[in-house]
């Protein structure tokens, strides 16, 4: 049985847990380490993808379609977030001539 998805038998779901944890931690470390706002947005996309991968893995392992529907909605929100975030970055670049977050401290009291 289970011939449709041989990965279910070859790979325990723990491996997907570790992989997603590693990818998410890399995203968090990138947000903390980099100062370029565009790379920050890319690291946020990386974190969203780690969560997406885990949602899909659990959805397949548990035989429930809701997880994959949730991934679909996360992709929708990620696309909207990227478009609005990049528009904001373009505006910031027009006003400040930089996208380095170290220099974007105008709201500091």
């Amino acid at each position, binding site marked *: 049985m289970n011939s449709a998805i041989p990965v279910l038998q070859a790979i325990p779901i723990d491996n997907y847990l570790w*992989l997603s944890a590693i990818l998410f931690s890399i995203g968090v470390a990138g947000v903390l380490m980099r100062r370029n706002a565009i790379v920050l947005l890319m690291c946020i996309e990386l974190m969203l993808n780690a969560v997406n991968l885990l949602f899909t893995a659990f959805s397949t392992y548990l035989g429930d379609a809701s997880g994959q529907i949730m991934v679909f909605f996360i992709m929708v929100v990620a696309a909207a977030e990227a478009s609005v975030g990049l528009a904001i970055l373009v505006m910031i670049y027009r006003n400040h001539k930089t996208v380095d977050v170290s220099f974007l401290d105008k709201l500091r009291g």
Partner: protein
Amino acid sequence: MVAFLFYLLSAVSVLCALLVLLMRNPVHSVLSLIIAFFAIAGHYVLLNAQFLAIVHVIVYAGAIMVLFLFVLMILNLNKAAPPYQTTLVKVMGAIAGGLLLVTMVASLKHSAIQPVAGAEDGQIGLVKNLGKALFTEYVVPFEISSILFLAAMVGAVTLGMRNKKDNSSAITHL
């Protein structure tokens, strides 16, 4: 064979994700992130989530990363920025990320999840079954997400146009 593919795709995705934050040039970061996204799409194929694999390639590699590349080119940021932050901040960020990884591994160490009996056919990732779930059970969130897209589109266009409006108002003011 499947295990080999899993470990290959995992190694590629983790390596390219590391390159995203280690590359100094933002364009190289974007390109390595695209490779990482293709590796994740391979994971979706491996999990028989065909619809998600296709949508992932179209939306992420086809739309979002092209948007990132266009913004990098338009802002002329495709050169390595001089390092403004100190090495201390970088080391602290790496340590914080590593600590988060240690915390997650420690908390997930004793998970014992077994595939349930309902997962045996493995057909839920096909377009037909996902579409059925999406347009019956989740039709209201689907429509709301279209409103979210409309709002995001209007917001992005408005943000992009504001400078021109300021110029025109300044001209009329003069």
